């Protein structure tokens, strides 16, 4: 637990993207999500991904984004390996080459690449929104468009509790270590959850009394410590986001030529290279995973 830091992904800054109201960013992130699920076309997905990366660079949150993207790295490798040998496509599949008991399929490479681009496109736009907006601003903005006050309070409270619980875990684990008990693995983590949770609940009793004394849940206009302004440009961005999403989705549904699954042919050398690279990474991941399982 030592060194485990739970970062809230917001990166402070003063870029043009930081200054945009959270709602337009949310609308665009949601729009990209809808479009990404509507299509498998690699060109559309990679364009969304590249534009997202450019905006990440404009917002100057590239380093923080890379850390989050690294979380996707093992998933990316296994996705390519699994899809190339078992495509998420209806049969029959077109074989490219056989390696031992496994056969690499044309549809598998296509499916693997499009799924990977879809995940990266969605994640990039979502991280752009998350990294350039303070969580409280997002919740305050959502409250303005009708999100219940109680739900807003719960979400904000959860974010505030994270560093506190994390700190308490570290204290409990250090106490266990100082008494020559296990400091890592299941043997240390699981028993430490009981005192941390029970301690937090005791704190909650005080919080409940404070909320009660401040008439929490009463009707009437609720004010917020954080003020989020909505400008003309923010409204314009929301409208553009909705129009772009609707237009793209309509185009994807109407234009059947955007489905490249049967026309896009991969060279065997490319397919083998991609799968070998992903397999080697996958095997490295397997070794690390097995070592950790044995240590746990």
């Amino acid at each position, binding site marked *: 637990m030592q060194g485990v830091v*739970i970062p809230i992904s917001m990166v402070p800054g003063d870029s043009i993207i930081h200054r945009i109201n959270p709602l337009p960013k949310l609308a665009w992130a949601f729009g990209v999500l809808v479009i990404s699920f509507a299509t498998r076309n690699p060109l559309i997905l990679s364009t969304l991904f590249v534009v997202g990366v450019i905006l990440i660079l404009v917002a100057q949150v590239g380093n923080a984004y890379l850390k989050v993207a690294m979380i996707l790295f093992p998933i990316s490798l296994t996705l390519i390996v699994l899809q190339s040998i078992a495509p998420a496509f209806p049969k029959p599949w077109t074989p490219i080459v056989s390696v031992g008991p496994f056969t690499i399929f044309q549809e598998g490479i296509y499916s693997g690449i499009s799924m990977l681009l879809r995940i990266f496109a969605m994640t990039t736009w979502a991280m752009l929104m998350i990294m350039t907006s303070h969580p409280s601003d997002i919740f305050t903005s959502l409250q303005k468009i009708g999100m219940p006050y109680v739900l807003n309070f719960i979400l904000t409270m959860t974010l505030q509790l994270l560093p506190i619980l994390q700190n308490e875990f570290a204290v409990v684990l250090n106490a266990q270590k100082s008494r020559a008990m296990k400091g890592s693995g299941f043997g240390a983590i699981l028993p430490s*959850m*009981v005192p941390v949770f029970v301690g937090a609940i005791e704190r909650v009793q005080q919080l409940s009394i404070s909320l009660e004394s401040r008439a929490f849940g009463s009707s009437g206009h609720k004010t917020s410590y954080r003020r989020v302004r909505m400008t003309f440009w923010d409204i314009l961005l929301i409208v553009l986001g909705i129009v772009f999403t609707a237009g793209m989705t309509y185009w994807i549904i109407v234009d059947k030529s955007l489905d490249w699954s049967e026309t896009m042919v991969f060279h065997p050398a490319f397919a083998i290279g991609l799968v070998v690279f992903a397999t080697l990474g996958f095997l490295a991941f397997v070794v690390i995973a097995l070592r950790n399982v044995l240590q746990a």
Partner: protein
Amino acid sequence: MSSEVKTKAAPRRKRLPLTYVVAVVPVAAALNIVGGQINTVLKLPTFLDMIGTMVAAVILGPWWGALVGVITNVVSSFISGPIGLPFAVCNVAGALVWGYANIWGWARKNWSFFLVNVLVAFVVSLFAVPIYVFIFGGATGHFADVMTAAFLGMGQNLIVSVFSSNILVSLADKIISGYVGLAIIEALPENLTSSARLPKSEGLKRIIIPLVGVLIGVAIILLFLAIA
């Protein structure tokens, strides 16, 4: 495992004040998130992100537990990106099974509590597998991927392979989560746990043998089915 029960008669569910409930839900969600983060950092072969869900589902009720599940995945997306967001469905399903099993008195004895955790694992896997297959192409970025590849190599299709590997991880995770949750509930103040109809916690060491037994049993069945 003894079958001593904490509450024998069905108790009347005491209505907790809204302020109390509103304060407990974030604690449970935060415990889920921190548990999941620790699991990721230490690369343990489980998830550990449903312990708070289990506690909330039992002490507050199934639907408050479901809310904890949703909040866990929503708030997690502010930390590690939105890839975990679809799995809110799994957290909700787990909360409903644990919560209603408690209300209907299915988990009063030690053996039945164990079986409820096994049921949670199966239900959660049923919801998780389509998400893994249709959104992540079967990849989890988890230890289970090794087993998925092994089952694919034995000729199983992707959905069955992902389910086969996921259920093993899920069984270990939900049984551990259930028993850690049980220990937490027992340590909570009486006024909070009046609606809990669960057996006495006997320590995590007592469930290691049944847990390993179930995992080996299920693994043998899955291997037999894959080979057959």
